[in-house]
């Protein structure tokens, strides 16, 4: 348990899985959840190194990142609701209003 390798592997795994999800999935809410997964893996790495380097600073970063993630979730989900109201779907391939 007290070996950084497992924690780093878990963090990298979650990050890469989240990135694959962002690329592959087309529903914007699932894409948002995959972004949260990547954010969570970065938090996880910060906490792991905060533990191994015996410093509380990494954990404080994670607290602030959590608060910012909450604000981001509020604004992002409001955007999705507005998009759905205006266009009728939240398919990331069909949202190309900046293209035309």
């Amino acid at each position, binding site marked *: 348990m007290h070996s950084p*390798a497992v924690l780093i592997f878990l963090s990298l795994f979650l990050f890469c899985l989240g990135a694959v999800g962002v690329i592959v999935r*087309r529903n914007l809410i699932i894409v948002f959840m995959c972004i949260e*997964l990547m954010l969570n893996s970065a938090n996880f790495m910060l*906490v792991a190194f905060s533990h191994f380097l015996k410093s509380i600073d990494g*954990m404080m970063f994670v607290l602030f990142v959590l608060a910012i993630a909450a604000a981001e979730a*509020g*604004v992002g*989900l409001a955007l999705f609701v507005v998009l759905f109201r205006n266009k009728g779907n939240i398919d990331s391939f069909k949202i190309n209003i900046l293209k035309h």
Partner: protein
Amino acid sequence: MDVIIFFIAVVFAMGSAIMVVGAKNPVHSALWMVSTLFCTAVIYLLLGFDFLAAIQVIVYAGAIMMLIVYVIMLTSIEEEIKRKYKLRLFQIVGIAFIVIFFIQAVRYGMVPLHGWEGLCWKEIPERFGSVNYVALKLFTKYVFPFELVSVLLLAGIAGAVYLAKKEKNKENR
């Protein structure tokens, strides 16, 4: 005992993360995401960060995921359930790059760690990561970011309310 719980949490976190990306139904995806966040909180607890584990469960697995489930209910999921996924070229290239990144990061990120045993704690110290110590740091060294975060949350609330309110005197786009 701790080691067994730790590895169960790690395996469950990985499996639920796979299901977040793989589940067809967005609601199932959200529930697997709750499972991932909960397993992460268990690992935080085992690493000695009690307060952060509680905050993770309350804020992430509670508040944010509940918000996401509400928004899934407000939008339609039939289209997503029926959709057949066909990978396009840019997606294949992107996945290949991510796989290369993962392999390289695991190779080079883990190699120096064999010499790191001296850095690891033999046992978890008593008061590290407890509410007491966190509060002491939060209201002394980190008091300015703490106040800034409150302003940011206020801006987030204002932005969300402005975006989501109904526009009455505007024609449909």
